[in-house]
């Protein structure tokens, strides 16, 4: 099958710091592709490149047959859960509606057609019961379900997810990741899933891009999530433990939280 996302010789730098370079990658329809790595390793920037919000220093990025562009209808985007103010003048169904036609000019005509589509999407993610509740009064998990519905509004070929499970409880993590998985493996969308924690989606992931310390590794979770590979990436010894189908990485460099200022000084350091 033809890849829907392709990167060739892609490099991204901020100032002197190289996030990643020489990245060649093909992501196919129906593939669940996880992007892992510590804070500041360029995971979110990777998504921004695909969204057309961040230019590459070199190399190319294509979506379908065309170079990436802002506002591509091939893409659905699920952001991190971020609470709305309690008096935000928007109900659950209106949030989903933004995904349907929020980017179009003018006012909404053809109300009934749009409303039908919104109802379908709400049903799909199981949010019908709170369709008319203001978004600011919903829980984080409920909001993320709506984000999934919003992202699926245009029937995207590529679903980009930026830490969508962050700050959700276990129950909602499972519910939201199952919804994303359905879109991937049943509706045949490619999913690019940025996360710093692979376990909630470990059963769904086909391949992993692991970014760390200006280097990267692509492969199946079995290939990448090993003591050897991650130690090599981090430039220091880390231990990968498999237990009950979960993966635990022990001994990550403390630098992930400390030396932000001099990250580019040491090759193996992680920002």
């Amino acid at each position, binding site marked *: 099958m033809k890849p829907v996302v392709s990167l060739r010789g892609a490099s991204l730098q901020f100032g002197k710091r190289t996030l990643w370079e020489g990245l060649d990658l093909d992501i196919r329809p129906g593939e669940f592709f996880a992007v892992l790595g510590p804070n500041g390793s360029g995971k979110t920037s990777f998504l921004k490149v695909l*969204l*057309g*919000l961040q230019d590459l220093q070199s190399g190319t990025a294509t979506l379908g047959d065309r170079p990436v*562009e*802002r*506002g*591509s209808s091939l*893409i659905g*985007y699920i*952001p991190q859960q*971020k609470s709305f103010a309690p*008096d*935000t*003048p*928007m*109900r659950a169904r*209106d*949030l989903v509606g*933004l*995904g349907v*036609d*929020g*980017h*179009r*000019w*003018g*006012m*909404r005509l053809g109300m009934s057609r749009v409303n039908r589509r919104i109802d379908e999407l709400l049903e799909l993610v199981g949010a*019908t*019961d*709170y*369709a*008319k*509740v*203001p978004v600011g*009064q919903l829980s984080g998990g409920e909001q993320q379900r709506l984000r999934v519905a*919003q992202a699926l509004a245009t029937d995207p070929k590529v679903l980009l997810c930026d830490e969508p499970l962050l700050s959700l409880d276990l129950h909602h993590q499972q519910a939201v990741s199952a919804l994303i998985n359905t879109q991937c493996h049943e509706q045949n969308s490619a999913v690019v899933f940025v996360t710093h924690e692979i376990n909630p989606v470990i059963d769904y992931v086909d391949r992993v891009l692991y970014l760390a310390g200006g280097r990267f590794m692509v492969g199946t979770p079995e290939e990448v999530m090993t003591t050897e590979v991650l130690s090599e990436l981090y430039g220091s010894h880390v231990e990968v433990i498999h237990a009950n189908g979960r993966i635990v990485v022990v001994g990550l460099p403390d630098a992930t939280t400390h030396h932000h200022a001099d990250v580019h000084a040491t090759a193996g350091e992680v920002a």
Partner: protein
Amino acid sequence: MDADSIIAAIFSFENYGELLVLVQNSIWAGAVLGLLGGLVGTFVMKRDLAFAVHGISELSFAGAAFALLIGADIVFGSLIGSVAAAFLLGVMGVRARDKNSIIGVIMPFGLGLGILFLSLYQGRAANKFGLLTGQIVSVDTVQLQVLAGAAVVVIAALVLIWRPLNFASVDPELAEARGVPVRTLAIVFMLLLGVSVALSIQVVGALLVLALLITPAAAALRVTSSPVALVVLSVIFAVTATVGGILLALGGRIPISPYVTTLSFLIYVVCRAIGGTRAKKGINGRLVHAR
């Protein structure tokens, strides 16, 4: 002045029918501004720009005062002032915190300039006072046409950018990912807001613009979260306040703005009470299934 004469100054309905004919233009102007204020106000609330409206109106006041001083057209002067302020805020104040401090800097400067120009002005005192408190009773047909024309342009522009502006206002991060020109829309909206402020100042004056551009939308927000209902209610509230204010003011001897602001305020208080009661009862539209 005893209580009776105070009441007579505020409410008096002698010769009401004849007066009504005389102020037809004013009533229409009030209706147009109510419509405009109600529509623009919903976005002011969504974008959290209440303070910006106040800042823009002070600079608009300075522009109008300068126009009065040099004998130029006052409407034009206030338009220049408010559009300049709105543009400045649109370009410079990207982040909310930034915006608020810039407004805090601009506002006293504008007000100070306005006072300077007014104290240099040698003409009628009523003209001075009118800038701050509004003087809609003197609207003639030509002014009404200009006002309506400008309002139509603003409303047309608003309708054209309605959906993406709404997207960018309530969910900016996603809007940007979807390719909505968030930054450009912010500046365009500030310009539309600037024109709306300048127009509203004609009715309620620089000090009370908030009653037209904030209060109706804020009141509507207390009782609904539906985007359509929000717009409808906001416009109804604003038109009720302006037209109702003018009709009440006809009888008395005092300026129009106290009536408009009081009506506006009362509507807000009632809406707030309704919203509060609903919140207490936990009514928010969620369907609860019996187990």
